[in-house]
């Protein structure tokens, strides 16, 4: 495997983690909620493509839409579900302690997952989502599936778009202010409900983007498919510095790079223990930078 190939692998894996971490950090920033339901929103978006078909080899219904309708549809599904969660559940948990919110979000994720199970059963389904993306392409001498390239480009695009949104628009300014100091922002005229709603919508749309990438990468739909990305994203959010969006993205890419590099560099007999090394590295980072790589202001615990 060439060095260039490793770099592309690291970037595409990191992209997934970075998108997930952004989705978690956006919500954490405005309401200190660690959203465990995020992974299940991802799974829901994939299954939204299959509905109303519940066969094992799914006749993709919405998945047959042309791509310029398909992508907005999935993003809207994610955003819609996420906003619905906010309206029905999380709105009632404002100002409760983080542990309670966390368990509530976990319970909500449970409800979403088993709702999918009830409709679609727990067997993984094979789906053909955007099959033209798995063709190989050659970039700078490295061969890779077109999807890998698109994943990286899409992530860069999303990051740029989000940066412009946060830096240049009024909503963005309000969100950054709310993430910095929610009480103060409210006193200065930021409307809490609107900011939180926008955060949930963005986070849900990011879940939709991950769903599209995962769905076309693996060619299967599985009710637990979001769980792994969600855990890694969650870790990335913390080691990036909770509440810091740039930190979350950076840590997501770092995690992807660490996992890919260890896979490539470890001797074969130690390769099975790759994950143990990754998590060991996470502990090390936390010991030396408990507040995260880039910590947001006002988040430091003094004791």
């Amino acid at each position, binding site marked *: 495997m060439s060095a260039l190939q490793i770099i592309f692998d690291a970037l595409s894996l990191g992209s997934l983690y970075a998108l997930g971490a952004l989705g978690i950090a956006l919500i954490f920033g405005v309401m200190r909620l*660690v959203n465990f339901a995020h992974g299940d929103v991802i799974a829901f978006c994939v299954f939204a493509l299959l509905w109303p078909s519940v066969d094992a080899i799914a006749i993709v219904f919405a998945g047959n839409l042309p791509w310029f309708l398909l992508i907005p549809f999935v993003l809207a599904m994610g955003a819609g579900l996420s906003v619905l969660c906010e309206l029905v*559940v999380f709105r*009632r*948990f404002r100002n*409760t*302690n*983080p*542990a*309670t919110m*966390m*368990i*509530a979000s*976990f*319970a*909500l994720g*449970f*409800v979403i*997952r*088993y*709702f999918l*199970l*009830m409709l679609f059963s727990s067997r993984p389904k094979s789906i053909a989502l955007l099959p033209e993306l798995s063709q190989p392409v050659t970039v700078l001498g490295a061969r890779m599936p077109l999807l890998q390239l698109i994943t990286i480009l899409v992530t860069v695009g999303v990051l740029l778009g989000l940066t412009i949104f946060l830096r240049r628009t009024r909503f963005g300014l309000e969100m950054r202010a709310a993430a910095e100091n929610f009480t103060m922002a409210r006193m200065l005229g930021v409307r809490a409900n609107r900011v939180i709603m926008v955060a949930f919508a963005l986070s849900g749309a990011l879940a939709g983007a991950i769903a599209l990438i995962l769905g076309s990468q693996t060619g299967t739909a599985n009710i637990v498919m979001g*769980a792994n990305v969600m*855990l890694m994203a*969650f*870790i990335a959010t*913390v*080691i990036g510095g*909770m509440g810091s969006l740039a930190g979350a993205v950076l840590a997501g890419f770092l995690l992807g790079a660490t996992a890919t590099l260890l896979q490539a560099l470890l001797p074969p007999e130690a390769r*099975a*223990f*790759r*994950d*143990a090394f990754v*998590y*060991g590295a*996470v*502990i090390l980072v*936390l*010991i030396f930078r*408990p*507040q*995260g790589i880039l910590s947001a202001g006002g988040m430091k*615990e*003094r*004791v």
Partner: protein
Amino acid sequence: MRQTSSLTILRRSLATPVILILLLVAFAILSWAVGSRPFNQTIIDMLVQVTLVTGLYIFIGNSGVISFGHAAFACLGGYVVAWTTIRPIMKKNAMPGLPDWLMSMEIGWWAAAGLAALWAALWAGIFGAILMRLSGIAASIATFAMLAMINAIYSNWSGVTGGTSSIVGIPIIRSVWPYLGVASLAVIVAWAYSISRQGLILRAARDEPTAARASGVDIPRARLIAFILSGAVMGAGGAMLALSIGVVTPNSFYLGLTFTTLSMLVVGGMASLSGAVLGVLILSSLIQALRWLEAGVQIGDTTFALPGGVQEIGLGLVMILILMFRPAGIMGNRELNLPRRR
């Protein structure tokens, strides 16, 4: 002066473990009286969960730091039981990499559970010495990383743990009494710790970290003691879990167990021992009731059965509702106690 004050706290709080253990005894007697095998297994599951959640409470309840990692100690404990109680002939096939002295070992359940607690406590001490310097969400994630690490090691260390495949052949205990004994012991340990000097110190550090530190409390050390003790109880709980089903796999001690135990603790009331025990009893009863409904209930001539998956959805919804109306859990931070005499 100190002597009298610690005696007072003993007398005031003694009713809590007594009430809780009587409650557990009542469930055990119920299962003995009913005498049906599935019901017996249900009660055993419940008592094992009580042990595990009580172990979780010792650390989370007293320190206020959420740990996602305690299932790892149950995993360590469960595998000790597999190493020490399975017949040597069967062990040779499943786990060929075991050292000879362990390969030939075959001991009773209580000795195995004790060893499990010690082994888990040892690793809790090693990991805790590193992790207890962290607090808040960083500590939670670090404990989760510990869980994932131990899971990755046990899933791939095929010679000694059999990898991801399940290890069968653990002699199953079908009687409810050993489980009752271990669960009661866990409750007593948790209670004794929470009224001990160290327990009081840690709770002071949980509620007022700055003031506690200014009064000379070494917070990492106080947390480490709770971490080791709760690791030991979790190890014993993992051992009882292994003895109750006779099978261990790394994934039966992973995210699923983490979230069930944590949910039971938070729903019951994170900062209360009574909450830990009641959380288990209430949520397990609920799960059981929903399972029965899923299997079908005969009313008149028709059988009502809920479709599959409704059990988990119902459980999730009830948890959300309980937390919505009682954000600090059912018990809050109060304990079950006798009405105070004037």
